[in-house]
């Protein structure tokens, strides 16, 4: 096809490019999608899209099992107050187009999604952004809790120039993170696209320094595995991974959103005194202590000194009490009280009787659990309440809701015993 076109308008330059790659632009969309691989033949010989739900569910079960195995036996300790610096490598290598449209654009896009997800899961944590360009590390944003300001700063600076320097980035982040309170978890997440690092000094010393300051460094590579990155992650207890494509990159990034297991030596446990202010009625008038201005409408009152502040979470400017709202804390509780994975129900006819007793519907969404032709569809059951759930509810319950509807519909002092054991 491309030969034919070349003959028609042979002098045009873009044709030469096309020829070098061997595919035309129109073809590329299909090559990338590999849409023919998502088809299968059914009994009557018709082509149908592959039913992926069973595969998705199996993948999700595997993920869940790994998580629950890691948590089993020990008390769950998570580092819920995190101070994370995201280092993005905007060196020459970030302009490569093996990720389309470019590595840089893809990194920015997924870091944006990551920042939103991060604050959703860790509302009391803070993020800072650092970029590497021309062999120098720049601070894009300081540690802060507002997703919008980070995203704005990130999107404003999209250009790829010069070499990359791991050492410079680590030195800068180390300097910043050394100042955070001792109970916070210090983390660095590096998105590295270059295959080399041009450093002014001995990077091994810097790595040891990071290790000493208890920085947990993780690296996501975009090109190939590098020894120095692996070494850095091993030394500081982080994760090293290399993304093979865009979807993989997204998954690898989002893996860092849930809080990591707390390692006792990384952060000193402490009791922090906090206040839970009440929200004032809409339309009430008060002078806020943060802007020293008269504000009409919503505001919060510090429970200790009764000063008015505009937003949460914050520190009271009068008495210094940390002010949060209980929803901020509650957002993290599902990490502490996870629900056990559901057991798969073997599709045996002997189970028919017990199933009939509990109804043929999913307890959560009332969808029929009978598959096509009154055969038994796949379903799962909760160990505690013995209710049956469909696979979709299973995923929803474990990934978003974090409540078992069955267990919540039985009266017993469940949560109390959980906390006292």
């Amino acid at each position, binding site marked *: 096809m491309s030969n034919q076109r070349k003959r028609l308008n042979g002098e045009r330059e873009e044709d030469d490019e096309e020829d070098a790659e061997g595919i035309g632009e129109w073809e590329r969309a299909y090559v990338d999608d590999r849409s023919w691989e998502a088809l299968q033949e059914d009994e009557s010989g018709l082509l149908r899209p592959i039913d992926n739900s069973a595969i998705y569910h199996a993948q999700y079960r595997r993920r869940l099992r790994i998580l629950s195995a890691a948590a089993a036996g020990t008390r769950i300790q998570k580092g819920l107050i995190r101070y994370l610096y995201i280092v993005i490598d905007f060196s020459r290598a970030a302009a490569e187009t093996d990720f389309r449209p470019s590595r840089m654009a893809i990194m920015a896009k997924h870091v944006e999604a990551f920042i939103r997800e991060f604050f959703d899961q860790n509302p009391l944590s803070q993020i800072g952004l650092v970029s590497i360009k021309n062999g120098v590390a720049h601070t894009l944003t300081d540690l802060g809790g507002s997703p919008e300001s980070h995203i704005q700063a990130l999107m404003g600076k999209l250009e790829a120039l010069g070499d990359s320097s791991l050492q410079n980035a680590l030195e800068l982040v180390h300097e910043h993170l050394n100042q955070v309170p001792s109970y916070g978890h210090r983390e660095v997440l590096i998105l590295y696209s270059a295959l080399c690092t041009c450093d002014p000094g001995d990077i091994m010393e810097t790595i040891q320094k990071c290790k000493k300051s208890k920085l947990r460094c993780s690296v996501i590579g975009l090109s190939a595995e590098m020894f120095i990155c692996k070494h850095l992650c091993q030394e500081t207890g982080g994760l090293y991974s290399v993304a093979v494509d865009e979807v993989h990159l997204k998954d690898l990034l989002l893996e860092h959103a849930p809080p990591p297991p*707390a390692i006792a030596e990384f952060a000193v446990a402490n*009791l922090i005194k906090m206040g839970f202010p009440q929200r004032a009625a809409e339309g009430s008038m008060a002078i806020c202590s943060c802007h020293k201005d008269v504000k009409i409408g919503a505001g919060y009152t510090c429970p200790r000194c009764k000063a008015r502040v505009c937003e949460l979470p914050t520190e009271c400017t009068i008495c210094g009490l*940390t002010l949060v709202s209980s*929803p901020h804390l509650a957002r993290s509780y599902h990490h502490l009280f996870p629900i056990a994975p559901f057991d798969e129900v073997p599709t045996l006819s002997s189970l028919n009787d017990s199933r009939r007793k509990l109804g043929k519907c999913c307890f959560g969404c009332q969808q029929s659990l009978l598959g096509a032709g009154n055969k038994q569809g796949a379903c799962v059951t909760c160990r505690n309440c013995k209710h049956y759930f469909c696979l979709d509810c299973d995923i929803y319950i474990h990934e978003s809701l974090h409540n078992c509807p069955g267990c919540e519909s039985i*009266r017993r002092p469940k949560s109390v015993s959980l906390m006292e054991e």
Partner: protein
Amino acid sequence: MASVASKLYSDDVSLLVLLLDTNPFFWSTTSIKFSQFLSHVLAFLNAVLGLNQLNQVVVIATGYSSCDYIYDSSLTPNGNFESSGSGMPALFGSLLEKLEDFAAKDEELSKEEEHEDRIASSLLSGSLSMALCYIQRVFRSGHLHPQPRILCLQGSPDGPEQYVAVMNSIFSAQRLMVPIDSCYIGTQNSAFLQQASYITGGVHHTPKQLDGLFQYLTTIFATDLHSRGFVQLPKPVGVDFRASCFCHKKTIDMGYICSVCLSIFCEHHKKCSTCGSVFGQSKLDDVSSVSNKKRKAPDT
């Protein structure tokens, strides 16, 4: 795809999931009888179904020791308004029948319990979780679906032991962009429902006159999500953002937070009862940390 169905599914088609508080310990203390209350609610449900032929109503009973679905308008054949033998519209005959079954079963389950002095809470967390599972199924069913919302008709006081579960449901609803409306008919304020409505962008209201409940329901809670932008709905009068501590389940406005797991305690402990962290150096840290100035105020 511009079929008749897609034209009918305009932006004001709603799915209303109603969580009905059937806690007998609450209903034995109220001025209004449960049957009176129910007649208001049934009229309201009829009104909602009458607003749009595609509107859908699901009722979940929130009992004292169990929760269950008692009515789903998508399961009954449409337009079945004629009276059956008992003189009751067939539409709600099945609802009342199921509600009776549910109440009997609920009573049986709660017999084994010994009772506390105060009015016991109902299982709000359970019915909220079920409602969200149902809504999730509606979202799965394709892109043509009614706009879902949840309405809690609650009278029982909050159960502090449900705190984590209720909050989990609220955040999940927020992520799904499903507003939780709440109509609280009890005597105290419900911090759970205030927070639920505030976080998810729903309406919270506490009717003063229960005789006129139907008026409140139709004027406030029948409004679909699209029309809410044009209607003056009651504004929240202060939201109770206080937390309950993990050790005594008391509601507190100042407390100690474990830095590892964010558990809330009302007094200083040596060890976190949730995650087992030891706060050995806390006194030392108070002096050395940047925030030592705030420790000068007496810790009470």
